[in-house]
């Protein structure tokens, strides 16, 4: 099996994190309060009033997760093309170009390998800012390669999901990525290697109906929206008000769909413990 590693200098970028894109204030999606941006930054982008976990860029997530913020980004030479020549109000091709111009070069998922509390781990982090974190061919291919490499190297896999689902602009090709990734996860399971799924706000559609729900451990970030059908679609179908807290992490925990809801500041410690629990003693 050949797989490609584009070596990059290990990224150490505490300065990136302080960059404030715009405005000093941020409105919380959880409680609608307006919060001072610096306060959010100090609190790992978690609302100090309601504990809503803001979306964070993949780089920030990876920097925090890996030991000494050291990791290697993988498969970032794989780029989306436009297999259906898709055009709705916008052309898919133009959307892709626009995103590239904005410097979003990883498509909707970053795959990285590095050490997490000393344990070599394959990590994928989805990026909602790239077409709603939608899963198309590139997401499918990068995650599948990451899992296959993990099987080969006998290392665990962690995926941070953050996605509206399959990418419509690639039609049924994106639907089939669900089957492709799930099959790769079946092989990881067969290899008795751990897969931990972390579901962040939001995780819906085809991502929920494939890898996000297939973890040996499924962890939700607090108050994350998690579901198969989106709340709007459900409301239109059943024509009833949805119950309070419906499809939030805590709701899924109550209904037995998540193993735990873990606050961001505890996440690395929890992940590290499970990697350790699941690491087989070498006999």
């Amino acid at each position, binding site marked *: 099996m050949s797989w490609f590693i584009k070596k990059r200098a290990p990224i150490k970028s505490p300065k990136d994190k302080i960059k404030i894109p715009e405005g000093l204030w941020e409105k919380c999606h959880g409680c609608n309060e307006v919060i001072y941006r610096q306060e959010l930054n100090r609190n790992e982008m978690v609302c100090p009033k309601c504990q809503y976990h803001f979306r964070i860029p993949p780089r920030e997530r990876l920097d925090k997760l890996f030991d000494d913020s050291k990791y290697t980004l993988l498969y970032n030479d794989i780029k989306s093309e436009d297999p259906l020549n898709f055009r*709705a109000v916008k052309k898919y091709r133009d959307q892709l170009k626009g995103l590239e111009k904005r410097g979003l070069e990883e498509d909707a998922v970053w795959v990285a390998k590095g050490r997490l509390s000393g344990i070599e781990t394959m990590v994928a982090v989805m990026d909602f800012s790239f077409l709603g974190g939608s899963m198309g061919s590139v997401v499918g291919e990068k995650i599948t390669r990451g899992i296959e490499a993990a099987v080969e190297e006998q290392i665990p896999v962690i995926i941070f999901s953050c996605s509206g689902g399959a990418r419509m602009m690639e039609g049924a090709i994106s639907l089939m990525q669900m089957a492709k990734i799930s099959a790769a996860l079946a092989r990881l399971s067969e290899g008795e290697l751990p897969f931990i799924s972390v579901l962040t706000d939001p995780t819906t559609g085809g991502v929920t109906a494939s890898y996000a729900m297939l973890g040996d451990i499924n962890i939700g970030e607090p108050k994350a929206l998690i579901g198969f059908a989106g709340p709007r679609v459900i409301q239109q179908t059943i024509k009833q008000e949805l119950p309070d807290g419906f499809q939030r992490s805590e709701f899924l925990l109550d209904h037995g769909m998540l193993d735990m809801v873990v606050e961001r500041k505890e996440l690395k410690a929890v992940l590290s413990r499970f990697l350790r629990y699941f690491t087989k003693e070498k006999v």
Partner: protein
Amino acid sequence: MVSMSRDPNNFEEPILELKARIEGLKAQPATPKLEREIDKLEQKLRKLQADTYASLTDWQRCLVARHPKRPYTRDYISNLFEEFDELHGDRRFADDPAIMAGFGTFRGRTLAVIGHQKGRDIKQKLHRNFGMPRPEGYRKALRVMKTAEKFGAPIVTFIDTPGAYPGIDAEERGQGEAIAFNLKEMAMLKVPVLVYVIGEGGSGGALALGVGDHICILANSIYSVISPEGCASILWKDADQMATAAEALHLTAPKLQKLGLVDSICEEPPGGAHDNPNQMFSLLGEHLAAQLAREESLSVEERIEARYQKFRVMGSFMQAG
């Protein structure tokens, strides 16, 4: 695309008018002249059907795939299987009538059969939830597949659903998990899995029965990541753009085959499966018999590897050198 002066939703009207005329003539006392006339009209009908169906727009193809008289899973089972015994329930929560599952004999051999089931009349439609399964449907399906694996029976699935049911109860019981688990488990099944998209292949709710060794789509069936209506309302902000969306989604049999997402297309009768269900059953029966023979020649390892590779290569991307 052909331009039709009529409402594009009524493309069958001229066919139905001609059929009614033929029926009318047949009701009259037979004379040699009348029989010649009927012959001529029947030829005309066949040509009209062939021409109409050869030039349907993708949206019209969706309407055929959803045609209220199109054969459903139950019809294929009762016409293709000498024996069939339905199994109920997921042993967890409930039985889901939106999916049928069971064992039977097809040309003398035992098969497991699993398929979405829509309803014919309004009572049946409600009972079957319009073919939209809840998690227990997918769990029942997997339970029966596992039983088939245990006893070495090949599995045939029939896909025909608008999608998995978007409801509060379905979400509470883990619709996403149920579909996901099927995808993962089906990838590793030791027995042959033959998939037939007989009507609507609606997104993840379809794929949850769709991970197999051979994926066959009927000529007028569709398979899509989202319904044309849903896509239109999200990407065009206008649900009336469904015909445009249908075109853009590449959801028809020939387009899917070109993209490498289905393995074969099963021909339909000239006027669509609903026009001549018996001919459809025999076309599908022949296809199934041939495909079963092919799949059974593989070893278990070869089969699982080939199934993995089939989905592994699905995707379209660029890679810098």
